[in-house]
């Protein structure tokens, strides 16, 4: 089921010397050049080829004036091109900012305005989203189109395409650029805390440390083949890339998870050993996929890992019964601010501690602190505060936000929970009521602000209610200015401004919102109100509330 200790120690030796993130790729390219690193559709790239591609990207960037420390935005679907560009940027000593490919143009504009990247690498589809503002809100000195699309209309900005960069497959030497392990490697945006995504600054050291710890826990080896259905702009997805490149494993990229039949078949064909997802990934797999009927054909599947929010016990048990007996389930917990992961639940304890997020991964220390910053005892609830070499440097251009979460005790996760007498950690809720929708962190305030922007509301409260697929979905309690206001109008209004997962599933009209003593909206009472309304509605009809 797991690699032997001898094998593992040999792999761990990879990390015995300080390395930069891209040196993981270079090392694997030297160690096993012909081994398949990436499978994407019909494409298969060996480590030697992948490293050559990254080197060509790096050389192109340097030739065009990119300097160490420059920020480069990377907006590209999971692909060989993404990986080559990602490592090429790092090799040039630049800072890579992988951005959400599901973002609407308005969200991208806000982030790119903040980042002011020196270059933009994007697929043609993503580049099209930036057309209306590319030259007004930021001025990249270079645009690289990461797939085979054409450069749209305006040619004032120097641009090129992958096809021009990679004209042949002649190996190119690894560039020799003096980069400190303490240098910033990437800025990864959270999915939207405090109403707006925050750019998390991570150094090479941060990511390397976390990569090492994850490889350790999962006992990853070069024999591992990881199915990747999570996007690389999401830190969980990115950690799959880092860990498997580090150990010389194989990444199978499948961007069509919705077609689960295809994913399952590919897992069988490619002898996949690892699968990773957020709770909604597994809910979907269990709800609509041939997993159960194909379980006998997955002899190689060593483990499934889950992170990105609490997964309901019923879902965990369903997954346990659906997977082959030899497949471990690894529950993990983390944050973008932690380079990816903070804890893991050893599969041996899966049933015994099914509610738990496990214990710290190597090098991480988590304390449960009360409001005064004093550590509480076993069973007592406090905030989870994490420390370790994987903790971020801060939020990009946000000193206030940074000082709020980075304290002398470490990184304040905002999650409330406790540690039991056996040392296992449990999360009971969010300190600030953020919602985790399908693995995305969403602040209800952002959705409330958008609804209020419509000008149709007196007040609004967005809360999260449990959902089988996404874990949580947002629901809006609305107090309308006029009786004529229809949920349909708000649905259209929000859909034009928010990603689908942030659009409230239901808009429930109420006469007023419950408030607490100081006049603030009482979210607990709101939740109670929603439950009552839902109960009444369910009794009256089987149809959805949505859009009504």
């Amino acid at each position, binding site marked *: 089921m797991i690699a032997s200790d001898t094998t593992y120690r040999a792999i761990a030796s990879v990390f015995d010397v300080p390395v930069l993130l891209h040196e993981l790729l270079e090392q694997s390219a030297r160690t096993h050049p012909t081994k398949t690193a990436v499978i994407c559709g019909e494409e298969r790239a060996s480590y030697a080829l992948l490293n050559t591609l990254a080197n060509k990207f790096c050389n192109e960037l340097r030739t065009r004036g990119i300097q160490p420390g420059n920020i480069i935005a990377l907006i590209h679907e999971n692909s060989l091109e993404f990986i080559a560009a990602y490592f090429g940027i790092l090799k040039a000593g630049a800072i890579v900012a992988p951005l959400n490919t*599901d973002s609407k143009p308005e969200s991208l504009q806000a982030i790119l305005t903040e980042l002011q990247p020196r270059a933009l690498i994007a697929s043609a589809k993503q580049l099209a989203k930036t057309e209306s503002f590319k030259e007004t809100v930021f001025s990249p000195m270079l645009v690289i189109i990461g797939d085979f699309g054409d450069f749209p209309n305006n040619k004032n900005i120097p641009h090129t395409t992958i096809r021009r960069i990679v004209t042949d497959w002649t190996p190119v030497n690894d560039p020799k650029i003096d980069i400190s392990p303490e240098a910033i490697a990437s800025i990864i945006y959270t999915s939207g805390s405090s109403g707006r995504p925050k750019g998390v600054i991570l150094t090479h050291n941060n990511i390397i440390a976390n990569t090492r710890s994850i490889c350790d826990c999962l006992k990853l080896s070069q024999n591992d083949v990881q199915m990747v259905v999570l996007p690389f702009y999401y830190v969980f997805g990115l950690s799959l890339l880092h860990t498997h490149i580090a150990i010389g494993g194989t990444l199978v990229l499948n961007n*069509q*998870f*919705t*077609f*689960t*039949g*295809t994913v399952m078949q590919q897992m069988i064909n490619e002898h996949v050993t690892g699968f990773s997802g957020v709770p*909604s990934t597994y809910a*979907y797999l269990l*709800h*609509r*996929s*041939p*997993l159960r*009927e194909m379980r006998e054909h997955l002899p190689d599947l060593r483990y499934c890992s889950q992170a990105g929010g609490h997964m309901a016990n019923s879902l965990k048990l369903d997954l346990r019964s659906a997977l082959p007996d030899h497949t471990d389930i690894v529950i993990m917990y983390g944050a973008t601010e932690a380079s990816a992961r903070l804890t893991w639940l050893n599969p041996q304890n899966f049933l015994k501690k099914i509610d738990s997020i496990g214990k710290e991964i190597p090098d991480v220390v988590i304390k449960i602190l009360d409001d005064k910053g004093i550590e509480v005892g076993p069973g007592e609830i406090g905030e989870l505060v994490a420390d370790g070499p994987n903790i971020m440097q801060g939020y990009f251009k946000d000193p206030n936000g940074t000082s709020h979460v980075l304290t002398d005790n470490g990184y304040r996760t905002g999650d409330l929970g406790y540690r039991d007498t056996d040392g296992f950690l449990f999360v009971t809720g969010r300190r600030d009521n953020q919602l985790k929708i399908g693995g995305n962190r969403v602040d209800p305030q952002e959705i409330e602000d958008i609804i209020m922007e419509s000008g149709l509301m007196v007040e609004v409260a967005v809360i999260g209610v449990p959902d089988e*697929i*996404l874990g949580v979905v947002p629901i809006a309690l609305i107090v309308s200015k006029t009786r004529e206001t229809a949920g349909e109008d708000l*649905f*259209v209004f929000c*859909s*034009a401004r928010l990603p*689908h*997962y942030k659009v409230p599933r239901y808009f429930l009209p109420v006469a007023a919102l419950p408030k607490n003593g100081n006049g603030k909206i009482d979210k607990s009472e709101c939740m109670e109100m929603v439950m009552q309304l839902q109960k009444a509605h369910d009794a009256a009809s089987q149809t959805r509330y949505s859009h009504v």
Partner: protein
Amino acid sequence: MLLRKLGTHMFDQIWHFIVSNFLFGDAGELKACTPLLESGIIDSTGFLEIIEFLESTFAITIQDHELLPQNLNTIENIVRFIEHKKGRE
């Protein structure tokens, strides 16, 4: 063959469902061959809604192993898939 089917009742029903539920009434550049997922018209949640709609509207059961792009990633593929299924049932 496909062109003939584009005007059929089945095609219209599917088209209307997608336009009204995911495009807010504006078909825009939606075509019979537009990849619904890749183009961002629907996500995995929306996909489940389409499945539910197809099963209830056309009285079919879509098996999990039939959740394949060649069956369901465009409107024309969906029409072909359902006609094939109904022909078999």
